[in-house]
């Protein structure tokens, strides 16, 4: 670190600057394993998107007013009156989607490369919590624009907690701040979204990063046979790896801006508790769970949908083989691919369920379970 000499002297008279410099230097130039590639950048991308959420979130808070009378109107103000408000909201809304996507890809990378194995089980567990926290962010943030879609998606989403045996009803009331989704729910979700979750996620991320830095990145070497990285062979984090991340950042920002401009986030219609719109669907990352819940009775469905989450959380402890390279772990990799495919299939079923579609000139109605039924007439729109 090259601080200007005067500042350096000033600081050195007051602090043991040597330790700080040594630490910062070590972290900045920390050598990464030679196989650190593009797939390894999704962690940083997630972090970058988190920072994007923080900054744009703070900017949105300047004009946003979390009451039933003003929430929708203030979002409308942001979209129509505040300069570049559409851009800030777009960055926040599309950034949220991309962040969840990046976290997911980062998790898959970790899974398929066996990076979660000893000694990094805790990093994995924290990562799973980070994922849960990110999704909760998405869920609480979705309500805030207070439009029809957000209102009803939240009504349906919070209804599910009511199915939990014994405490379900209490939990639902606690979450909603009453029997129905009201201004109380909005206030609660707002507090969770802008105060509680940001700090929780910050703590989780700090711990996750700390562990990652202390233990170093995993390689394909077998558990217990990892060799320390030789400074001459490793890739320095700065500037080498950071430059590689810079290239990926460019692509990510390009994608983000393209999404904002070509598929702008809508304002929607103001929430109306007396008018239920048709075809309420949750956000894409909830679709697999949403579809899964349909095939089981309420309480059972809840337990079934908990299984993948528990498996995810405990996976680092369940898989105890020492191999990391995917080619040497056929069972784990097959399970991973199967889970991924299942999630995609359920997600697609959830997306197309309760819709009329036209496929090869024939009209079908897809029922709640995702089974298509031939229609004799053209579907009405």
């Amino acid at each position, binding site marked *: 670190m090259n601080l200007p000499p005067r500042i350096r002297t000033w600081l050195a008279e007051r602090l043991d600057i040597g330790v700080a410099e040594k630490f910062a230097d070590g972290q900045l130039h920390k050598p990464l394993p030679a196989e650190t590639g593009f797939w390894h950048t999704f962690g940083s991308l997630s972090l970058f998107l988190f920072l994007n959420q923080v900054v744009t979130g703070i*900017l949105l808070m*300047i*004009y946003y*007013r979390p009451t039933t009378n*003003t929430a929708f*109107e*203030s979002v*409308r*103000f*942001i979209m129509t*009156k*505040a*300069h*570049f*408000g559409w*851009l*800030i909201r777009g960055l926040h809304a599309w950034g949220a989607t991309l962040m969840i996507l990046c976290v997911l890809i980062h998790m898959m990378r970790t899974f398929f490369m066996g990076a979660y194995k000893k000694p990094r089980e805790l990093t994995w567990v924290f990562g799973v919590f980070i994922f849960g926290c990110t999704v909760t962010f998405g869920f609480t943030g979705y309500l805030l624009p207070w439009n029809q879609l957000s209102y009803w998606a939240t009504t349906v989403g919070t209804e599910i907690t009511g199915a939990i045996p014994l405490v379900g009803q209490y939990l639902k009331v606690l979450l909603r701040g009453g029997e129905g989704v009201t201004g109380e729910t909005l206030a609660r979700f707002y507090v969770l979204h802008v105060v509680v979750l940001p700090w929780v996620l910050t703590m989780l991320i700090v711990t996750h990063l700390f562990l990652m830095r202390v233990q170093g990145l995993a390689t394909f070497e077998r558990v217990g046979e990892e060799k320390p990285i030789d400074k001459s062979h490793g890739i320095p984090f700065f500037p080498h790896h950071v430059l590689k991340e810079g290239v990926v950042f460019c692509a990510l920002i390009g994608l983000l801006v393209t999404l904002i401009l070509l598929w702008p986030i809508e304002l929607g219609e103001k929430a109306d508790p007396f008018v239920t719109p048709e075809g309420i669907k949750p956000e894409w990352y909830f679709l697999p769970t949403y579809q899964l819940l349909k095939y089981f009775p309420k309480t059972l469905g809840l337990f079934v949908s908990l299984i993948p989450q528990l498996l995810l959380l405990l996976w680092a402890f369940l898989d105890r083989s020492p191999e990391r390279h995917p080619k040497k772990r056929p069972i784990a990799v097959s399970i991973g691919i199967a889970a991924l495919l299942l999630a995609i299939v359920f997600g697609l079923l959830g997306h197309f369920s309760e819709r009329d579609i036209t496929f090869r000139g024939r009209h079908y109605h897809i029922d709640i379970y995702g089974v298509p039924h031939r229609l004799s007439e053209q579907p009405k729109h």
Partner: protein
Amino acid sequence: MNEEQRISRRTFLDWLVAGGLLTWAVAFVAPVISYVWPAQKRGPSVQTVSAGKADEFAEWQTKIVAIGGHPVIVIRTPQGFRAFAAICTHLGCIVGWDAARHQIACPCHAGFFDINGRPVAGPPPRQLAEHGVAVVNGEVLVKSA
């Protein structure tokens, strides 16, 4: 490639990186500043809308101003300014001013409202919602609700 060329290429690239990052920073900060700068000097919770200068109104002169996409009729009575939502309570037509009767008149079904907004003739079932008006420094300010 000799040593000098290599060094010049290196510094050139460094300049590019620095310049690019700077451009990037500006491209980010500029919209943020313009976003934070009060748009039209009023936020999402609009308090008042100006209906013009008070001395531009003669006695019994009226003016229709838009507040959040809704018309509001401002009337200068001998006792001062009054303002009412200019949407007839019957079928939602925009009301106007009947100078001869000194009443707010709806052109659609001949509904009339007195200068307190109360329906006095025709089909309107309810009175017009009143907006507060204040004259501040010679400017007529109408409350948004």
